[in-house]
């Protein structure tokens, strides 16, 4: 029982990290269908933002880094969307290749600015230790990541369902032509959506600094996991992404306990392949009375 509970906590912790890195992609890939291979570099930009701020701000830097990283990564994403991606809408292969090139350029820029070796972001002292739950200690850093995820998911949900801008985003995602003919500026919606998606990647980058060192390839290491969560959840479905992250995180944690990390990864991939064979549209899909 104790083992099952311990793995449940570990699984939820992994789920939180998976969801954190996938949240931004639910916007740019899930909502806009843009396969952005440079998404990982927005995570990296967020992580380096935390690194830059820890000098002047000390132990409070992490809290400040969250909104700053959102803006920094969002701004980089916005520039990328304006300069390149908007010219490539509807051309997924071209977008994939171009953003992959941008990804390599951004990694090299990071090497030039911060050096090739990884750097450390010191966790603030208030994140030392952990919390004991039923004899299982959960690290404060893991709890902090879970808190970031809960706040981010709640904020996105409110944005999409309760704000005029969110309604416009959902309208454009569903039917771009009809949205334009209803008076919605699709260009503005594209820019805003890309800014938020990239900004969320920056927030993820700050969270990930609590789990390890920061290097130029930090984000690309997480990119595949992020895509898997979004695809398994169903493109553009926040609820699907949450459930997919929890499912994949728990599966990995339990298989890891009975075998080891590499086997767990293989099992997760096989499970995803089997799942997508049965349900290629992911966990959630648009349901209407139409036949499409």
């Amino acid at each position, binding site marked *: 029982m104790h083992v099952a509970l311990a793995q449940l906590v570990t699984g939820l912790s992994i789920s939180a990290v998976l969801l954190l890195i996938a949240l931004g992609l639910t916007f740019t890939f899930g909502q806009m269908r843009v396969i952005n291979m440079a998404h990982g570099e927005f995570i990296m930009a967020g992580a380096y933002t935390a690194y830059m701020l820890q000098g002047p701000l000390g132990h409070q830097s992490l809290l400040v880094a969250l909104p700053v990283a959102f803006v920094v990564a969002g701004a980089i994403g916005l520039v990328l969307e304006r300069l390149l991606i908007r010219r490539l809408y509807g051309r997924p292969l071209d977008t994939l290749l171009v953003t992959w090139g941008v990804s390599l350029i951004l990694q090299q820029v990071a090497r030039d600015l911060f050096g090739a070796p990884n750097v450390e972001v010191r966790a603030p002292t208030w994140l030392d230790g952990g919390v004991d739950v039923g004899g299982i200690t959960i690290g404060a850093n893991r709890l902090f990541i879970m808190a970031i995820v809960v706040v981010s998911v709640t904020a996105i949900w409110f944005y999409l369902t309760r704000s*005029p801008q969110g309604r*416009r985003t959902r309208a454009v995602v569903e039917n771009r032509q*009809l949205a334009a*003919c*209803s*008076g*919605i500026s699709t260009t503005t919606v594209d820019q805003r959506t890309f800014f938020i998606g990239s900004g969320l990647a920056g927030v993820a980058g700050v969270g990930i600094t609590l789990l390890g060192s920061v290097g130029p390839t930090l984000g690309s290491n997480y990119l595949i996991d992020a895509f898997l969560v979004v695809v398994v959840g169903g493109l553009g479905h926040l609820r699907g992404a949450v459930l997919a992250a929890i499912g994949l995180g728990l599966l990995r944690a339990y298989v890891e306990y009975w075998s080891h990390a590499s086997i767990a990864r293989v099992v997760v991939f096989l499970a995803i392949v089997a799942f997508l064979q049965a349900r290629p549209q992911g966990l959630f899909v648009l349901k*209407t009375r139409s036949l499409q």
Partner: protein
Amino acid sequence: MLTVSGIDVAYGRSRVLFDVSLEIPDRALVCVMGRNGVGKTTLLHALMGLLPCGSGRVTFDGSDITGWRPERRVKAGIGYVPQGHEVFGQLTVWENLQVAWEVSTAAKASAIDDALDLFPRLRPLLKRRAGFLSGGQQQQLSIARALVGQPRLLLLDEPTEGIQPSIILEIEAAIVGLHRDGLSILLVEQYLDFAIRLADQYVILDAGEVARAGPASELGEPAVRQLLSL
């Protein structure tokens, strides 16, 4: 109000409209008719800016809107109800109306209520996802969404297509009311009787060209019926 002067429209290299000209006077209801595939929907797409005009120009209230994006045309006062009762299926009925109202600079506070007064059938369905409405209810919602922006010209693309008869009567009554209140309307329609009851003027397209145009009183003439028969 709207003047179309010699427009050509093509899908890639395939030309669909050839030198089409027509006029929609202020407060008039003009019906565009023709057999399937003659370019009626293409004409509306071009008027909304969804397709570029290869040549010619479109003016609205004296402004040349030929190169304008669709959302700019909507803000200028053109409402559009596309063919096939298109709605935002993931959004609720209320959200479908609200999203159009929020982006409109001209709409007054009561615009959503006014649109719902026209189609009271939608009132109890406001919290339902639009994708789960019947075809007739979706068509009413589609018209209501276009009206929420309080357009001065409404483009309607076959609003009765595939709709149950009782709702066709409600839609007809709504169009008659809007026309009576002074809204200019361009109606694409296949059913001759429906057009005869509603229109002030007609335009018949044939093979992408204007084959005939005139007052609606001519619509019963054999020569006109000949152009519309299969």
